[in-house]
């Protein structure tokens, strides 16, 4: 009904493999590309190069242990992944999370979203041939990472969330440092515009490229900035709030363009929104416990539990089927990148090879999240 026919290789077709070892695929993604001159006729994504069987692994891990594995899925929004798992367990066991823990979680998640978007911005520049943005993006990202290190003990795969709250209290310097870095970033984000957003070459490269219609975006199950760039309202923080997002003032960014430029603008605007959320919370961290009292061994009641959160790339769903034991019977991670990647062939059809790079960088793929 809606599916295009499978592409059949003809005699004399120019088939180029892009990836798994390619500078622009951001990981080990293999794209088989049928070309006509420079124009893309068809793309076939081949994934699974770093499939680590996280779902199968989680089936043998306890509810305290399985959280850490999810940091390795979308490693750029590790906090948010962990948060999703912790929330699912809390929902199933009906644990009341202290207010302080909720605020800390949201703060950390938004900082994480900022770092993720910064890295994405740098990589977008890098993919389109401008090397300098990469280093500019890492300037603030590095400070935020160090700040994470202060509180969580690690920079990328933090494992800071536990069912019932967070693992440790905030570092005493946390508030001061966050304020510093946000103030600095508010000044420096204008450099992002000067270097890329306003640049005529960059705009030419992304405007009108990689069009994804609203219908297609819904049909492919896209989420996050990829879908919001096509005009779909799908911000989980707004639609199905968790951890106190309902009390915060922020906008859901929606662009109608559907092209790379719209997706780019969504992410840039989201950085501003994240900063405003951090501004609202940083001075209002309530006193209290950072962790609810939980039993040493967690046992989920029998049933099925689904919890979704908004990671930096879209909707992450954790679907746990429990038989009442200490480990999940079946666990499924609905990863945002998986669905977004499946829309890539539609977006890239009829574009040039150079556009493919732009499209991939504005979808902001993280391959470990696709493979899981």
């Amino acid at each position, binding site marked *: 009904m809606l599916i295009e026919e499978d592409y059949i290789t003809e005699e004399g077709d120019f088939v180029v493999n892009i990836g798994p070892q390619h500078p622009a695929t951001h990981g080990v993604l293999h794209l088989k590309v049928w070309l006509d001159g420079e124009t893309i006729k068809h793309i076939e994504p081949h*994934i699974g190069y770093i499939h680590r069987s996280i*779902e199968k692994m989680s089936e043998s891990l306890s509810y305290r242990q399985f959280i850490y594995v999810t940091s390795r899925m979308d490693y750029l929004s590790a906090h948010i992944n962990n948060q999703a798992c912790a929330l699912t367990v809390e929902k199933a066991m009906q644990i009341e999370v202290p207010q302080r823990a909720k605020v800390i979680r949201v703060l950390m998640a938004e900082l994480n979203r900022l770092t993720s978007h910064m890295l994405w911005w740098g990589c977008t520049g890098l993919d389109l041939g401008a090397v300098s943005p990469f280093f500019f993006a890492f300037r603030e990202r590095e400070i935020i990472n160090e700040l994470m290190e202060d509180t969580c003990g690690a920079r990328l795969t933090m494992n800071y969330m536990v069912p019932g709250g967070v693992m440790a209290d905030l570092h005493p310097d946390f508030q001061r440092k966050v304020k510093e870095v946000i103030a600095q970033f508010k000044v420096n984000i204008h450099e992002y515009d000067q270097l890329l957003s306003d640049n005529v070459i960059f705009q030419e490269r992304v405007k009108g490229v990689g069009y994804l219609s609203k219908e297609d975006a*819904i049909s492919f199950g896209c989420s996050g900035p990829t879908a919001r760039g096509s005009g779909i309202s799908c911000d989980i923080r707004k639609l199905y709030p968790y951890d106190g997002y309902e009390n915060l003032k922020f906008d859901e960014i929606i662009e109608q363009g559907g092209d790379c430029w719209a997706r780019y603008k969504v992410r840039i605007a989201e950085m501003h929104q994240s900063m405003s959320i951090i501004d609202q919370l940083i001075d209002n961290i309530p006193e209290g416990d950072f962790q609810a009292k939980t039993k040493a061994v967690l046992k989920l009641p029998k049933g*099925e539990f*689904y919890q979704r959160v908004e990671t930096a790339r879209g909707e992450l769903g954790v679907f746990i089927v429990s038989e009442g034991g200490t480990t999940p019977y079946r666990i*499924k991670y609905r990863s945002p990148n998986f669905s977004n990647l499946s829309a890539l062939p539609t977006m890239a059809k009829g574009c040039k090879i150079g556009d493919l790079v732009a499209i991939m960088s504005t979808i902001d793929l993280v391959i470990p999240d696709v493979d899981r």
Partner: protein
Amino acid sequence: MSREELKQRLSEICPSVTFDETGEFLMAFFTPDVFLTQMKELRCATDLNFDYLFCMTAIDWKDNFTAVYHLSSTPFRHALVVKVKLTDKENPVLDSVAGIWKGANFLEREVYDLMGIRFNGHPDLRRLILEDDWIGHPLRKDYADENMIEL
């Protein structure tokens, strides 16, 4: 549409439907034989309009496979979980919904790869994640691999 209205409406589409309301979403059990037409109805009926298949997976229960479809509607914001029980453990087959939701193409390939459910009418049913010559389907409970490490 509220949960009661949804139940009412679903019973119209499929008289044999049974419900389970223990979870967060309304769960409806469909039967495999007329599954495809009912899914089409869910997608196309103007008052239901389940256009967003946001999660699809399968569970290996001891006596059956259960395919789980998480559906929601972007205009109405109601959600539904459709479940189909496949009792044939040796050779589970289900109709493909890849023609209804484009995203199901990849999701079904993943389920086929890891759980071994075949989808009738899928345009390109190959293994997605593992190599083409992999033996077995790892997410099945009876899957055994000599190289597997027990933790």
